Every structure is written in structure tokens, then in C-alpha cells.
């Protein structure tokens, strides 16, 4: 195991940055720590590097406890946000500094610098200063500077954040390639779920210093255990609404809304569910259908190429639905006007149900009721 963190705790004054944080990273594994800014993920990375000293807990690298070891002797390398290159040194010296500090002979340094420069493709800019190279080149210099140390693990602190969107996609590819070449573990901190999803073998979701869930990207997307994970992963984000137990039927839940009739109802097998639930549906799980159970009112419609993104009103809440361009209704989809009613269906296994503590409940839904059925039920009593 490359890295093991045991019960890390860290607080800055009264602000808790990490709480009982455990992490295992296997050799060669690419782990992303994902969370909003201020979630404690950068702190975790800095504690591994030794730049910040934890309040309690252990950092174990390659089986050795590293709590009081200087950052340079932990056998880790870090790639910083905005690279943090030494502005007064040439690219060559930026890469060479570490070996120079170790007192390695000049020829050996030269050989190694040229070797890593060759791998990341920056041989032609070795004599330039950081201000004379592009953002992407700086990115590669940052990687080369980390690589020359041949570390156990690469720590990457949002390395793509400063780059423009188009270039970020390219650099993601390069990082995946980099991981394939070096075969070393990478711990990658980011707030961008797309970066985490596309590169990592495993994602650890961190919020307010607490690990919410970890697993493979697919696992987190398909089986979020927490509302936070459900809404943080995926773009556009999952729609969530509050549902409450119907007064007439303990198995029936309706939208918690001021509108008279719930736009749809959910019937569960279990009648002992809590009174309030959070229901989540991903935007692309809605299927446009004339006899769908879910009744919404269209607000706006955007054509995004492969998909059509709709903003619709469901009771009081607004939600986002994406449908494929092949979807059909009675009227042509492009002729729909704002305020026109629409019906959607969602298959019952595509609902994500969360309890009042925001944890996932795995109670099967028996039936999705259209508003007409709910009206009948409530009037029938």
C-alpha cells in the first residue's frame, strides 16, 4: 500500500478542516479527492506532503509512519495549482533543484533532467524562464519537476484549475497518459467532478472535513449514498425535491408544495418510512411521454446539440431535464411554448430516495402515481 492515512484530524482555530479522515491508496492507484472548496481536501494533501502538521492521526507512506519527517524526505512529489514554478530560475533549474539539494553529481542531474523533459515533451524550452512559456508548458514543467524525484505518490492540488476550458480537456488526457507511463499512485484533489470522474480509479468525496463516500466513479454515480454525493456528481446536477407522507395513505408520498395537487405521487411497499423524504431524479432519467405520470410546466428550452435541455416547473420547484433530440410529443418539440404542459415518465428504479439525515434509503417504489390518481384518492376518502 502506497499511502495510508489513519484518523487524521485537523482544525484551524474553530474551523474543522478534517475529521477522523481515513484513506488507503494502493500502489499505482489514481485516487481523486473531490469536494467543494473549503471541504478539507487541500489540507489532506498538505498533511500527506508534510507542509501542514496534523493535530492527530498518522500518515503512513510505504509502510513508514511519516508524521515528523520533513516534506523533502517523505518520498512524495507535489504538483501545485498554478504550478508554483520558481520564477527566477530557468525551466532546467526548476527541474534540477531537487537533485541539486540532494548533492547528486552534475552529469547525473543533467541526464535525469533531459530524460524527464523528454518524457513530458519540454526539451525545447529548458533554457526559458517560467514567464516565457505557455500555461500548458508550465503544466508539463510542473509534472517534470515532480517526476524527477521518482516519488511513491504524486500529490496533485487542482493542477488544471488555472487553465482555460478547452485546454483542460487536453491536459486531462495528458495526465491519464502520465499515470500510465509512471505507473505510480496519484492523489488528485479537485472540486471539478468531471476531472475526478474522467481520470480517477476511485473517488473520495469530502465535505466539511468529513468523508461522505468513496468508490469507483461509476459506483458513486449509480449508487450515491448521500444527497451530497448525488447532487455533486453528474452534470447537470441531480434534481431533488422534498416529499411528505400523504395524510390519507402512509405508503403514499406527495410533493411538499403549496400547489393543490401533487404533480406525481410515489407509493412505497413500506409504511414505516419517515414523514419527510428527499427524492432525487437525474435530468437524463426523464422520458418524454404523452401518458407519463409526472406533470410539469415548461419554462424554457435550450438546444445543446446532442441533447435538449429543458427548464420546467414541478409544483413550486424548478428542475432541469435533458432529453434526446429524437424525443417526440404530440406537438413538435421545438414548437413548444413556455407555460405549455408536458408529461414525463421515470422508471421506478431511477428514483433516489434519501431520509431526513440525507442518507440513502433503499426502499422499493411500487408505483408512480399520476396527479389524476392522487386527486381521485384524496377525493375518494
Amino acid at each position, binding site marked *: 500500500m502506497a499511502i495510508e492515512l489513519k484518523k487524521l484530524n485537523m482544525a484551524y482555530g474553530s474551523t474543522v478542516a478534517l475529521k477522523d479522515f481515513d484513506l488507503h491508496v494502493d500502489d499505482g492507484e489514481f485516487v481523486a479527492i473531490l469536494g467543494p472548496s473549503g471541504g478539507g481536501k487541500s489540507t489532506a494533501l*498538505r498533511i500527506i*506532503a*508534510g*507542509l501542514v502538521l496534523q493535530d492527530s492521526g498518522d500518515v503512513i507512506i510505504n509502510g513508514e509512519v511519516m508524521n515528523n519527517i*520533513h*516534506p*523533502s*524526505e517523505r518520498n*512524495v*512529489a*507535489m504538483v*501545485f*495549482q*498554478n504550478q*508554483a*514554478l*520558481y*520564477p*527566477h*530560475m530557468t525551466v532546467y533549474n526548476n527541474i534540477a*533543484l*531537487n537533485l541539486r*539539494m*540532494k548533492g547528486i553529481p552534475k552529469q547525473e542531474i543533467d541526464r535525469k533532467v533531459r530524460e524527464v523533459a523528454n518524457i513530458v515533451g519540454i526539451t525545447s524550452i529548458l533554457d526559458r*524562464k517560467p*514567464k516565457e512559456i505557455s500555461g500548458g508548458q508550465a503544466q508539463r514543467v510542473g509534472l517534470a*519537476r515532480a517526476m524527477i524525484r521518482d516519488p511513491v505518490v504524486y500529490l496533485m492540488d487542482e493542477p488544471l484549475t488555472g487553465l482555460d476550458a478547452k485546454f483542460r480537456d487536453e491536459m486531462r488526457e495528458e495526465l491519464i497518459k502520465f499515470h500510465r507511463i509512471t505507473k505510480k499512485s496519484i492523489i488528485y484533489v479537485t472540486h471539478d467532478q468531471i476531472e475526478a470522474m474522467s481520470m480517477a480509479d476511485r473517488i473520495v468525496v469530502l465535505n466539511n472535513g468529513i468523508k461522505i463516500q468513496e468508490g469507483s466513479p461509476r459506483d458513486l454515480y449509480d449508487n450515491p449514498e448521500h444527497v451530497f454525493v448525488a447532487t455533486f456528481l453528474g452534470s447537470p446536477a441531480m434534481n431533488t425535491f422534498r416529499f411528505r407522507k400523504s395524510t390519507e395513505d402512509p405508503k403514499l408520498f406527495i410533493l411538499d408544495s403549496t400547489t393543490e395537487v401533487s404533480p406525481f405521487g410515489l407509493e412505497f411497499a413500506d409504511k414505516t418510512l419517515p414523514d419527510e423524504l428527499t427524492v432525487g431524479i437525474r435530468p437524463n432519467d426523464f422520458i418524454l411521454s404523452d401518458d407519463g405520470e409526472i406533470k410539469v410546466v415548461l419554462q424554457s428550452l435550450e438546444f445543446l446539440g446532442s441533447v435538449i435541455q429543458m427548464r420546467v416547473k414541478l409544483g413550486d420547484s424548478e428542475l432541469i431535464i435533458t432529453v434526446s433530440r429524437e424525443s417526440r410529443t404530440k406537438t413538435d418539440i421545438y414548437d413548444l411554448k413556455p407555460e405549455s404542459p408536458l408529461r414525463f415518465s421515470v422508471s421506478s428504479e431511477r428514483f433516489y430516495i434519501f431520509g431526513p439525515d440525507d442518507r440513502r434509503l433503499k426502499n422499493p417504489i411500487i408505483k408512480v402515481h399520476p396527479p389524476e390518481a392522487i386527486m381521485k384518492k384524496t377525493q375518494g376518502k
Partner: protein
Amino acid sequence: MNNTSTKNKRRKIDLKLEARYGYLLVAPLMALIVIFTFFPAIYSFAISLFHYNPFGHQVFFIGLANYDSVLHSGLFAKALLDVLYYTVVVVSIQTILAFMFAILFNHKMMISRISRAFVFIPAIVSSVALSIIFIWVFSDQGLINYFTSFFGIKPINFFFSTTYAFPAIMALNIFSTTPYFMIIYLAGLQTIPRSVLEAASLDGVKTGWNRFRYIYAPMLNFTTFIVVILGIIGSMQLFDQIYVITDGGPSHATYVPLMFIYNRTFIYFGDVGLSAAASFILFFAILFITLMQRRYLKETRWT
């Protein structure tokens, strides 16, 4: 078309009006600068070409003769060399000390904020008041002699000694100007990104010397040049402390160019033309050193 042309005209008028307001607002300050800086400078250049004795009512043009006699007066040459020696010693020591203080106090902790404030006190005390305090500090019953007496050293009256008077003045000025330059260094330290220091730490730059050699010194060299230039200009114009404490003595041991200029104008001969010429020689000396520095500066800036 007619419409746009009137619009343009109006805009032009607006701009003119705005510019006029601008001139109006800077006028008072410009007037002060012209009256008290430019005019005296030009005027003194003019009188440097005259034999000008306001007390004897003798004024006549003598060309560059004043410059010639200043440069050939042994006293001015000595004064200039002395102040250069003073500048080399004071600027190097105060620059190093200011840098060290800045590194020492560059923390967010309360204690370093308080110490910073304490260290800064000498910089805000008036030079005359500080000089008067230092007359006592360096007197034969003063603070320094009190401490050295513990080691069995006989008391020295520093300001009455041709050997020690000038070094004592140097010590006083290092004490009072270092904190000012410390502030400039502290500002410079703020511009070094935290992540660069972290990267250096990971790269194994961990001893104080290595940190200085690879990170602080190269990244602060622009700050250092500012500190050195300001230091040189200040040192070359040394006057108040000498005027208050030693008056150029003993036996011209602390005689600096401004002392020469002052004495020639107000004390001995009243030869204002000669003094003006001496002022311009000093001015060109400072200008020359500053320009030399600037040439070097262009290539050392990294931002």
C-alpha cells in the same frame, strides 16, 4: 450626420472641461513643487555660475570657476570620500539587517506583530530628537560605556574621538533607518507565493542558507535594489545628525558634503555660488550611482 457632429463636438467640449478641472486640481501641488523644488534647483544652478556673496553685495559671472575650486578644495574631496565610505558601510549593514528582521518578523503571530511595531519606533522618531538621545548613549557616562565597563573597558567619549565619532554616527543611522527598509522587505516577502515556498520545501530547500540562496535572495532582488538605492540617496545626503551632534568635528572627522555646503553658505564666507556648485557636484554623484544601479536593475527583475 449633423446630429453626430454636434454630439462629437459636445464630447470634445466635455473632455476639455474635464481636463481643465484636472489641471485646476493639480495646480496647487504643481505650484508648490515649482516654487520650492524646480525654481530653487534652476536658480541654484544659475548662481553656481556666479560669484555670489549676498552679504557683500558682490555678484558677477565666473563660469565654471566655482566647480573648479570645489573640486580642487581638499576638504570637499575628503568630505565626498568620507560620505562614500559611510554609504558603503551603512547601506550594506542596514540592508542585511533589514532583510534579517523582515524574515524574523514575517509571521502572522501576535508576538511578531508586536516586535515589528517596536523595531519600527526609531524610524518614526525625528532625527534631531534621536540625535540628542544618542549624544547621551555615546557619551562617556552613557549607555554604551555602561555596558562596556562590565568588561573592564575604559569609557570612551565616542563623539569626541576622531576614530569613533564617524562609526558612532553610522551606528545611529543604521539603528534609525533599518526598520524603514524592513517594512519594504516585508512587503517584498508578501509577493512570494506560498506555494513556491512549499514547492521549495518539498524540493529539499530546508536550511536557512539554502532558502536564502535559492528562494529569498533571487526573488527579492528587486526589493533589495530599491532598498539599496534609497539607502544610498539617504546616506549621501547625511546632515541632520552630524549638524546636531558633532558639527562636522572633531577635526573634520565627520565632515560630510552637506556640512561643507552648509558651512560655506551660512557660517564662513557666505559664498553661495561656491556652495551651489558643491550641491550640484553631489547631485551628479548621486545621479550617477543611481543610474548605474538602474542599468543593472532591468535585467534582474523577474516579475
